């Protein structure tokens, strides 16, 4: 978090820098114009000044910017020379980035989009990198006589398709603001820029790239479905309510996708469900392997989602079977989800159980007590649970939920009587 804040501060400083850019340009422009001052009667482009600036060129220059906590490398796009304009117009510059690390079968670079983690450095309707600056109206023959910073890239904030050493191509475009070219995902789709330049640099990324992230996300979702089916079979069969819970979860995932991707993903999910169902019915759900893999590829959010879906299955039929409770406790523990968050989510399901705690319950499973714990550890755990459920029995507005909270208090008190006293 500190790093993000620091980057935000650096960006703020850069934006301040851009504010100075225009005044710097005016100064440079004035210097260029001094070779032949324009008059009010002259139209731009009427005549060439004698001290004409050379055509504009651009370059990339790495610069270390020191923030409060640590330093950042900024790749500055600098420009020098005469603006590439046929007449006076509103001039803009944009920088897009493509990852050109990977080569196609012919050994040519295969450009791939690059995402920016900073909202201020994204295309208007995608998350791909773009930096754009507009200079306002510039006159013919104006330009910069010295290297001037126009755009910038903070490599650390780029998200390439994959991690490791990545080669980037920075495409710089000069354009007429009134006839803007269309750039999507870093590719020039439409329009004619006034000039283009390309530069390259290499940066090493330690974190997963967006393709890797997307692949892992998809695999995580498949694993979550497999785990959910396995969870549904914990008591021997998948009940209608449990099946409906899994189906709803998949439907919600599909709803998040663009229509063009939905059918394919639906088929993939269905295939996963069939495999998982067959395996679970054959008693080979392989939950252990699923959990291990999910822990490997799933981020905290995916792991918590898996646990929440398992909890939904646990409470789907309004009953919390001991075997299901044990299973979900074990899943949460092995997936290493946040304990507080897990217990909170579990509690929410437990209060919703319509009479699901009636009769004898296994307090070890329901209260998540480890049989290896000693007396003091159990006592402290029960005290904590008691404090929480006692408060809930007071605050819950729904009478059924309140009754369920009171039943939980009974279970906790019985556990204390049997295990501590």
């Amino acid at each position: 978090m500190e790093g993000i804040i620091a980057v935000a501060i650096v960006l703020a400083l850069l934006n301040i820098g851009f504010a100075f850019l225009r005044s710097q340009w005016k100064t440079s422009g004035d210097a260029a114009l001094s070779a032949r001052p324009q008059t009010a009667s002259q139209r731009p482009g009427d005549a060439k000044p004698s001290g004409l600036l050379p055509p504009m060129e651009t370059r990339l220059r790495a610069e270390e910017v020191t923030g409060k906590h640590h330093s950042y490398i900024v790749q500055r796009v600098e420009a020098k020379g005469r603006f590439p304009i046929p007449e006076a117009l509103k001039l803009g510059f944009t920088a897009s980035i493509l990852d050109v690390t990977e080569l196609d079968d012919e050994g040519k670079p295969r450009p791939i989009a690059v995402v920016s983690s900073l909202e201020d450095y994204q295309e208007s309707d995608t998350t791909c990198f773009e930096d754009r600056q507009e200079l306002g109206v510039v006159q013919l023959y104006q330009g910069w006589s010295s290297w001037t910073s126009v755009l910038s890239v903070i490599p650390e904030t780029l998200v390439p398709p994959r991690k490791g050493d990545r080669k980037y191509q920075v495409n710089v475009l000069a354009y007429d603001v009134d006839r803007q070219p269309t750039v999507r995902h870093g590719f020039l789709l439409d329009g004619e820029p006034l000039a283009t330049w390309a530069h390259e640099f290499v940066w090493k990324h330690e974190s997963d790239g967006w393709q890797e992230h997307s692949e892992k996300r998809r695999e995580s979702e498949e694993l979550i479905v497999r785990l959910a089916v396995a969870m549904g079979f914990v008591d021997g069969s998948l009940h209608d309510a449990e099946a409906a819970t899994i189906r709803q979860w998949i439907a919600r995932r599909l709803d998040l996708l663009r229509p063009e991707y939905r059918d394919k993903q639906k088929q993939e999910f269905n295939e996963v469900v069939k495999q998982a169902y067959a395996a679970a019915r054959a008693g080979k759900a392989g939950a252990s392997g699923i959990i291990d893999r999910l822990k490997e590829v799933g981020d905290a959010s995916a792991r918590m989602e898996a646990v929440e879906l398992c909890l939904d299955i646990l409470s789907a039929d309004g009953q919390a079977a001991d075997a299901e409770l044990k299973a979900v406790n074990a899943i949460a523990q092995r997936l290493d989800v946040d304990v507080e968050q897990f217990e909170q989510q579990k509690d929410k399901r437990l209060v919703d159980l319509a009479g699901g705690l009636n009769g004898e319950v296994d307090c070890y499973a329901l209260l998540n007590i480890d049989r290896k714990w000693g007396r003091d550890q159990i006592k402290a755990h029960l005290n904590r649970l008691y404090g929480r459920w006692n408060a809930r029995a007071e605050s819950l507005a729904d009478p059924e939920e309140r009754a369920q909270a009171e039943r939980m208090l009974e279970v906790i008190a019985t556990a204390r009587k049997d295990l501590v006293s």
Partner: protein
Amino acid sequence: MTALVGIDLGTTNSALAILDQTGRPEIVPNAEGDHVTPSVVFFELDGSATSVGQAAKDNAIVYPDRVFHEFKRSMATNVPVTVDGQQVAPVELSSLVLRKLVEDTSERKGEIRGAVITVPANFTNEARVATIKAGELASLRVTHIINEPTAALFYYSYHKPVSGTVVVYDFGGGTLDVSIARVSGKNVEIVTSKGDPRLGGIDFDRKLSEVIRRTFEASAGEKFDERTHQLGKTPKEYKKQLTTRNECAVQIVGGKTGRKILTITRQEFETATATLISKADLLVDSTLDEAGLRPADITQVFLVGGSTRMPMVTTHLEKLFGKPPVCHVNPDEVVALGAALYAGFSADEKDLNPAQKSVVSSMELQEVANHFFGTICQTGDATGRQRLSNSIIIEKNTPLPCSKTEPYYTVRPGQQAVDISVTQSATREEDPDFVRTIWEGSLGPLPEGRPANMEIRVTYSYDTNQIMHCRFEDVASGLTKEIDIGVKSGLTDTSLEGVDRILIDDE
């Protein structure tokens, strides 16, 4: 001069005490001459009147559907009872008990215009407000409410010098409160309180009933049916016998057997109620945990409430704290007596005579916030997902008065209103589903065209009368919303709709 009155409005019994002219608190017996009045209401068959207290209780066996008790447990939820097809709210039933106490006292002591009423330490805001309303319905001006353990400690420290870190174990008919306080002479500083409003003597009575029923069915070979079988005494009376004897003889009349005598031992009773004691232990443990104390840190344990007479309670507490608990006053009366002292303590000086002034001037009390108070806001959770969350502003056990300001921010550009709420919880709870929202509204309209992240400053100020002043301010525009939440404003106007239907004496 106005009588200074304290009332213990209990789940099973209620009592009234006054601060007499010498500054000494004393219980005022009711019209029947009893120091405590059963909190029981009976609706006469013709619907013309009600009776309250022992007379009402005596009707319970014959007219169980017209006799109401334990309604204090429903003060927060306000779940009504039905009599003659009409609904009667717990607040209305409580008002009838208060009315009897006040009328009985007025006959002996003159007009009572104001009183202090006690409530369990963990009573919610709604229950506190309902208690005040009950007083108002009984034509009583409730000057203050005070927590029962605090009132008891007030009296204990008045009665005998107390010092150190003490526990007040208030085990009444319907609730158990455990409070921890630092006391030096008559200076009482509350550290924390916790309560279980679902644990009291009546739960032990029910367990004893179950034991009796099971024993009967096992020995008589027939099912115990309340319509055909009758106990010789109430379970509560058998429970009382078991506090002094190791066994009691229970007589059951009716059914196939006609008349049967059963022997129930104290051991059987204690086994059946072990889970209840375990619940009580959990409350003690979690209260000590909250205060960061161990049993050895406690210098004295004071007993309050009739249920502390059960030997298993005192034995258990002695085992828990390593010292015998203290009970040198009547545990049924100590709360009312303490409330009467508090009535003097909180009264205007002009309402006190020199003797009374002398008694209360040496007393000091530091109360704390009994709950966490917060507001609902949007936050990112541990996995980065955005969720609604309860954000605590005033911590439980903060000494009163207190005030705290926290900044919050609008979440989206162009946001023109902010949903605002005040929440209450007994634990540091983040999940909005598990907190009680005691007020909600909105702040707006906010100026148009603004970016996200505009600061909304929220200030909660909680005073010694347990009234919380809340201020929500949009910092940039200066738009503010201020509300007072507490015993004077918590009930909606509609919550007492239809109350006239039962206020027979108002006709």
